[in-house]
Every structure is written in structure tokens, then in C-alpha cells.
């Protein structure tokens, strides 16, 4: 019986091929756009939330301009300043994301955070150095020893899932897939081969509620090291100019695709209605030969699965993995898709249940 229903559905598709193809295309574009916009929106909201969590203080970071022909040299004055800034008890921190241990074969990226990073983001790492694993890092476990630049570190703990930090240059950054080393500047510098990480560190420093003199001192010391120029920036300004604007753009996009979704639903409803009404006489004959409403419901469901439910589910399911920030919406999206499927099928069945076999089989 299911073979017959499949065959009949295929014939109905063939009869409505133009409309069904348009429908499938619309479902694909809408689902795809929604997944990516949701991903971007969640990311923007995360940026704002995380920035707001730091906003009780004036947060200063630095834009970096390379291009000075002079070679970079970590002067003793700069070394002292970094020690004072990143070994103290404040929340000031600096991070090294790249250019560190390029030859160390680790499965997960290493983030080195020097200074008060743990305090700034409420991480449980009281003693430095502390090596922490992101929630999704595999291959190591608590207590294991990991060697970074020939220095062995014991994994102290695993970070809670969803741990993140705000990279003023990149926005919200998840720590779930990251190996995080929290240390003081002086201890890390003592054990690590001098390299380009020193220059990166200077450009990735974040100061909490610094005095004007502290900012000037930092800029002066960094600029005299050569090879780079740093320009202090306020996180508040960045939040206004970048993150809020991005959220607005995404909201506009969601509004647009919300409307498209409504047009899509109207189209599906009309195409389904058109399918049912144009096949009423056939359905009536099948009813005469013993088909029950359940069989016809199965055929309507097959039609809906191919034209709407399957494309939408595949797109949401597949891209939820590619766009991790949208993954949280997958259960909701699946529930909505299922609900729409059921509502549309119910409408089709309502139309079918109203058919009068005698009237339909009477010649016009």
C-alpha cells in the first residue's frame, strides 16, 4: 500500500513540479538564511552580554599598527611595565593566540592568558600557572601532563561548557575547544623562548579602569619598543560602533526573513490546497475502492515531507553543526517544523473530510 502511495505522490509532484520546485527552493533559502542569521545574531548578543559583564569598569584595549621599519625589542622598561601590569592582583590581562609554539603538535588550539584573565571572566584558577581544558577538548583529561614549549604543565581542571571571553578584536570567543594556560607574565617569560609572541602580547592587552597615566605609559613603552604602534581604544565605543550595529543589522535580516517565512507558509498552504482540490475526484474514487482517510493523510504527509519538512530539517540540522551558535535553536526549529507539518496536514485532511463522494462523482 505504501508503494502505491509513494507512486501516487510522485505523480502528484510531476503534475505540480513547477510549484513544488519553487517551494523547495524557497524552503532551502529561508532555512539557510535563518540558520546563518540566527548564528550571527546569537554571536552578537553574546558579544553584548559579555561586554556588558565587563562594563562596570572602563575597559581599554589597543589597536595595533605594524609598519615601522625598526626591529621590535622588548626593552627593560617595557618588561618592568608588563610585569607590573600582568603579575599584579588586578583584572588586567593579555592573551597570546598565535605565534606561540608553532611546532608543538596539539590537537586543540592553545590560548595563553597572562594576568587577571581568570578574575575577569570568573574562572576558577587561583594558582598560576594553571592549565585548563575547554569542555569539548578531547585527548587530555584532568591530571594529565601537557608539554608546551618544552615546559610540562599538569591539567588542573576542565572549564564549564559555554565558557567564553571577549576578544575586543574578534568579539565573543568560546573556550570550549581551547586549551587555556593562565599564568603570570614574569613566570611565563622566564620559561618561554623569546619570540614574536612578545609583540603579539603587547597588542592584545586589556586594561581595566586604567588611569590616563597608565595608558600613556603603556603606549609610550610599547611604541618605543619599535616595529609597532599601539592606539588605545575604549571597549564602550567598540560596543556602540560595532556590536550594537551588528545586532541591528541581524534584527533587520530576521524581520525580513520572518516575512519571507510567512509568505512561504502561505504558499505551502495554497499549494497543498490546490493539490487537494485538484485531486478530490481521484481521492473520491479511491475512497470508493476502499481507501481510508489514513491512506490519503499518508499521501499528504509524504507530499509535505518532500516539499517542506525534509529540506527544512536537513538544512537546519546540517548547518546547526557548521554554525555552532545556532545549534541551540535546533530543537526549537525542529518543533516548529513539525508543528507546521502537522497543521498543514490537518488542513489538508479537513479539506478531504468535507468532500462528498456523490457530488464529486457526478458528471459536471
Amino acid at each position: 500500500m505504501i508503494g502505491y502511495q509513494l507512486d501516487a505522490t510522485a505523480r502528484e509532484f510531476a503534475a505540480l513540479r513547477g510549484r513544488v520546485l519553487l517551494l523547495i527552493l524557497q524552503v532551502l533559502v529561508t532555512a539557510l538564511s535563518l540558520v546563518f542569521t540566527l548564528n550571527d545574531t546569537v554571536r552578537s548578543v553574546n558579544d553584548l552580554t559579555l561586554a556588558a559583564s565587563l562594563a562596570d569598569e572602563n575597559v581599554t584595549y589597543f589597536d595595533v599598527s605594524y609598519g615601522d621599519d625598526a626591529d621590535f625589542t622588548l626593552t627593560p622598561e617595557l618588561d618592568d611595565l608588563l610585569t607590573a601590569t600582568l603579575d599584579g592582583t588586578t583584572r588586567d590581562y593579555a592573551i597570546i593566540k598565535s605565534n606561540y609554539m608553532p611546532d608543538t603538535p596539539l590537537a586543540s588550539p592553545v590560548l595563553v592568558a597572562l594576568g587577571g584573565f581568570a578574575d575577569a571572566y570568573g574562572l576558577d584558577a587561583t594558582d598560576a600557572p594553571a592549565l585548563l581544558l575547554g569542555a569539548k577538548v578531547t585527548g587530555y583529561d584532568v591530571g594529565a601532563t601537557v608539554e608546551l614549549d618544552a615546559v610540562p604543565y599538569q591539567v588542573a581542571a576542565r572549564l564549564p561548557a559555554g565558557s567564553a571571553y571577549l576578544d575586543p578584536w574578534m568579539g565573543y570567543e568560546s573556550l570550549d575547544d581551547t586549551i587555556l594556560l593562565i599564568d603570570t607574565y614574569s613566570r611565563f617569560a622566564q620559561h618561554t623562548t623569546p619570540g614574536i609572541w612578545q609583540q603579539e602580547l603587547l597588542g592584545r592587552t586589556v586594561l581595566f579602569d586604567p588611569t590616563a597615566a597608565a595608558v600613556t605609559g603603556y603606549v609610550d613603552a610599547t611604541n618605543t619598543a619599535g616595529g609597532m604602534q599601539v592606539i588605545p581604544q575604549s571597549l564602550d565605543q567598540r560596543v556602540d560602533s560595532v556590536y550594537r550595529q551588528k545586532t541591528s543589522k541581524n534584527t533587520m535580516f530576521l524581520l525580513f526573513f520572518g516575512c519571507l517565512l510567512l509568505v512561504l507558509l502561505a504558499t505551502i498552504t495554497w499549494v497543498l490546497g490546490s493539490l487537494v482540490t485538484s485531486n478530490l475526484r481521484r481521492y473520491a474514487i479511491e475512497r470508493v475502492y476502499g481507501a481510508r482517510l489514513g491512506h490519503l493523510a499518508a499521501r499528504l504527509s509524504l507530499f509535505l515531507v518532500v516539499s517542506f519538512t525534509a529540506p527544512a530539517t536537513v538544512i537546519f540540522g546540517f548547518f546547526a553543526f557548521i554554525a555552532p551558535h545556532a545549534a541551540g535553536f535546533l530543537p526549537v526549529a525542529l518543533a516548529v517544523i513539525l508543528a507546521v507539518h502537522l497543521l498543514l496536514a490537518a488542513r489538508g485532511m479537513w479539506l478531504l473530510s468535507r468532500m462528498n463522494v456523490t457530488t464529486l462523482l457526478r458528471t459536471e
Partner: protein
Amino acid sequence: MAMFAAVAMLLGVMLTVVTGHVTGAARDWSDANFGLSSRASILVVQSGVDAELSSTVNSEALSLLTQVDATVIFEADDDGLGMGLYDSAGRYSAITGGGRDWRGDSSGSDVLALVREGSYLVGRESSYLPDSVRVLGSYDPTVVPLSSEYVYTLFRQETTSGTYFIDSADAQLAARLAAVFARNGYMTELAPLEVSVWSVIRSEPLSYAYLSALLLVTGSLILLCGNWAAQNRKRFAIHRMFGAHSGTYTTYLLPPAALAALSGSAVGIIAGAAALASLDSLSELPGPFALLIVGLGNGIALTGIFLATVSIHARRQVA
């Protein structure tokens, strides 16, 4: 017709969002190019082995520029703080006050500068700016699309290598300026700035999503109109029997279709504009004239699509 009006409303909202998107993209693009006009050019200058001193080049460049009105902006390769400005066209007179120094014809030789309001340089100019720079005051970055830490009078600076943005009514000025640098031993690369609607659309990936979605909605609209015509096929057949033809349908359906499309479109435009205004992006709200054009265009286009689709279907049904 209620369905048609509802779709017109949804399309009205969507088109308002798209207009807001294009307005915002055009503004971002313009800001990124310092608000220069579409005729502007970009000249990249690199120092060659036999490059002359900057004073020689500056002098020749100024001689050339005194002959025409122009705006030239300079970003030096090794300076992330300042931006050189020559403005005999008065484009940035809101901050320069149309002063002679910004036209490069002052008798003085100092590099004059305005520091951006809110910059960390304010009050610390002597520590960060070269000794040759004399600070005149500050400028308000909200009135001009210049976001560097400070702007200084161009063609008195010591650095020549970098990127020049040249905007002038004289189409040959950029090429002649490039020739000045080349003659003095610099390597040059000249390209148009290309500020056009198409380049704005191309610069924003979201534009493609908007465009493809609008095309799909148009397809849906044709489908829905066709379905409406199919539902009314018996009525059309009866009309035909009593002498109706394609033109009759157009005359008969035009008033209700136009009313539904225009009213739906108007409601959609107002709702879309209200939604945009409630966002944190008031500057991306299109102007009333643009919204009026979009609303009328949407209404007229939808009426046309409806009448054409119904007319074709009605003729087929009768046949």
C-alpha cells in the same frame, strides 16, 4: 483580495528592510571612503631606490594642485595615527573652516594638525606627534567621516609612501599626480575608487540573500495569483460566455487589485519603517521620499503582476 493585500503588506515590510540595508551599506561604504565622490581615485605610492626627498615631491605636487580644486587624503604606510588632508575643494570645510592652510598655500612650513575629539592624543599631543606638527585644535568626527586620531596639512609631511585618495572634477588630476611621484623615483599604482550602487551591493554579502529571497517571493506571488485565478475559473468562463475578453478582466480587476496592493504596501512600509526606527540603527532608516517611491513601486508592480497572471490564467481556463 485579502490574501493579496496581506502579501503586499509583507512585501512592503521586506522592501523597507532592503531599502534600509542599501541605505546603510551605501553610508558605510561612503564613510569607509571618507565621503569622497564616485569620481575619486586611489593612488598607492611606494618608495623606490632612487626616490627623491619628500620636500621635492611635495613642492611639485602642490604646484600641480594649485591649478584645480581637489580633495586629497593621505594615509602613510608607517603612521597609524594621522591622516594627511589637502582640501582646496572645501569638502571638509566643516572642520577646516575653508582655511588657506588646508589648500596648501600658506606661507608657513609647519605641518598643522587637528586632533579628533575624544582621541587619546588630546592633551598629550606633544608626546605623540612629531615636533614638526603644530596642533591648531580639535575636530568633531561626527560632522566628517574622518576617524583617524588627527588630520594634518598634506604635502608638508616627511613621508611620501602610502595611499592617496584623490577627488577632483579634473579627471586627469590623479594621473598627473601619479606622474609626479613616478618622475621622482616612486612606484605608483592608480585605480578608481568605484563608488557605485553596484559596488555597494557587491560589498555586502547580505544583498545576495535579500535579492534571491525577493525573487522567490515574486515567484510565490505569481503562484498565489495563479491559484486565485484557478479558483475563479468558473466565474471567468461565465463572464466569457457573456462577452468578456482579456481587457475586460483588467478593467474589472484593476480597482480592487490596485486598492489592495497600494493599501497593503502602505501598511507594510509604515510597519517596516516603525520596526527599523525601533532598532538601534536610526541612521539606516530610509528617508520618506525613498519610502514613498518604494511603496508606490511595490503597489504598482504587484498590481501589474496580479493582473497579468490572472489575465493569462483566465484565458487558459476558458480555452
